[in-house]
């Protein structure tokens, strides 16, 4: 049944120099619904699509507030993410208790990076099956970090992970130059536009399936903080509407009929 002989554990290299268990864990990230993160000079924003397993169930949480200055978005196994989120929460609390300061983002991310790396080097352990986008503000301004099950962490200006996230990344790459100067709502707007790109044809951003997390500086150059907050449901209505209006305007401007949404849209995700 095995695909090959080198994927029984996470401590054995394949002759090609790969560690399959870690690569499989990365696959788990791609199964998760998409999350987008992006930063400006003042803000860091996370946007996510929530899924419900069935019509009757609630939507799975995608964004977590870790501390007042940090939040994260997850793609992959939610239960693994909760372990990491709890750990980060503890670390942030203890940083405030011992130094009376907000945990520097770089430090926080390297802590979970080290934690995840350990799992790839000990027999009998399993890598985390989750990817994270960690957004926050510290002494040096807003930051966005990407975390992968391999233990890889890197700072990003904008990033998307999860199912069909390539579409979002394409959008982000195309518009990257604009982000730095964006205000709070503009940045959220870009985030939702990127998120929208990943949707299959007849899917829309709705109040139920969209989450937006925002953290930032109240004013550029000042230390006053807008604490990380997750916006769900009615809170995201205006933002979603603005993205929808724009899309409508675009399609009608292009002279399209706006009709072709018939019904044969492929149901790949969700």
């Amino acid at each position: 049944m095995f695909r090959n002989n080198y994927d029984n554990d996470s401590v054995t290299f394949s002759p090609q120099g790969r560690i399959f268990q870690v690569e499989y864990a990365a696959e788990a990230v791609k199964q998760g619904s998409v999350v987008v993160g992006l930063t400006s000079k003042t803000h860091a924003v996370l946007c996510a699509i929530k899924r419900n397993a069935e019509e009757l169930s609630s939507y799975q949480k995608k964004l977590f507030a870790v501390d007042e200055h940090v939040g994260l978005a997850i793609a992959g196994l939610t239960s693994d993410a909760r372990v990491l989120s709890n750990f980060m929460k503890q670390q942030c609390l203890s940083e405030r208790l011992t130094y009376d300061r907000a945990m520097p983002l770089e430090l926080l991310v390297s802590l979970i990076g080290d934690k995840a790396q350990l799992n790839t080097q000990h027999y009998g352990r399993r890598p985390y099956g989750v990817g994270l986008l960690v957004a926050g503000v510290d002494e040096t301004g807003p930051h966005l970090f990407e975390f992968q099950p391999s233990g890889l962490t890197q700072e990003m200006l904008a990033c998307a992970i999860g199912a069909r996230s390539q579409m979002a990344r394409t959008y982000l790459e195309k518009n990257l130059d604009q982000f730095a100067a964006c205000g709070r709502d503009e940045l959220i707007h870009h985030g939702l536009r990127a998120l929208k790109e990943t949707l299959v044809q007849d899917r829309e951003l709705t109040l139920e399936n969209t989450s937006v997390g925002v953290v930032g500086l109240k004013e550029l150059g000042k230390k006053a903080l807008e604490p990380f907050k997750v916006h769900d449901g009615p809170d995201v209505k205006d933002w979603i509407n603005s993205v929808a209006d724009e899309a409508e305007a675009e399609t009608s401007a292009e002279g399209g009929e706006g009709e072709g949404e018939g019904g044969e849209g492929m149901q790949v995700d969700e």
Partner: protein
Amino acid sequence: MAMFSQNPVLNGPNYSFAEVPKDAVDGLREHRFNPYTDNGGSTLAIAGADFAIMAGDTRLTSGYSINTRYAPKVFKIGGTTSSQDDANLLLSVVGYAADGEALQERLDAICKMYRYRHGKPMSVSACAKRLSTIMYQKRFFPYYVYAILGGLDEDGRGAVYSYDPVGSFEREQCRAGGAAASLIMPFLDNQVNFKNQYVPGTGVGHELKERERLPLPRNEVEVLVKDAFDSAVERHIEVGDGLQIMIITKDGIEEKVLPLKRD
């Protein structure tokens, strides 16, 4: 060994310890590092119908010296941010300041974890019990503080819980703590709980009817607090400098700092 025993014996009056041995007593005696000190100061809390008020002076002393004129004793607890804008509880601590701060930080961390896990703030009654447990766990090396916890209960009424250093606690209408507690508490008994107040002309001896106890309105309570501290400052050397007042209502927590005599 002369250098180790050169503390001058002060022969003047000591403040509250009148009878102390002046010479070494025969038999086994042990002297060692004393991990406690008393940083003076006084606190006060009163529960109203739909609010709770907590106050403390801001002087911090060691012996006869004033370390600082502004060291707050009343803290907001259980907010999600370090600015505590969305806090729903108040804690006052008086006695040994380092223990007070340690206790305050610990309780706050616990409330923050509670919020993170449950997605809602801790109720006063839950926090009151938790604080008792924390203090009792250190029963044999206690936090040397008199703590008072305040907030609004499930029905929106003002709640005040007072503690001794090893965690015994009780919900009360009002409580004074710290150096001038013995000066302020009798005043509160009379003015808040109407002790020894009777309705004139209702009889003699046991026939006398007690004045009916009603919760006081907020403006009256604020005046009461200021008066209590002004009096305490006159008579107690460890109380003074500033008066920090926090008032919790359904609309949040208001804080003000009023001047007290600095002599």
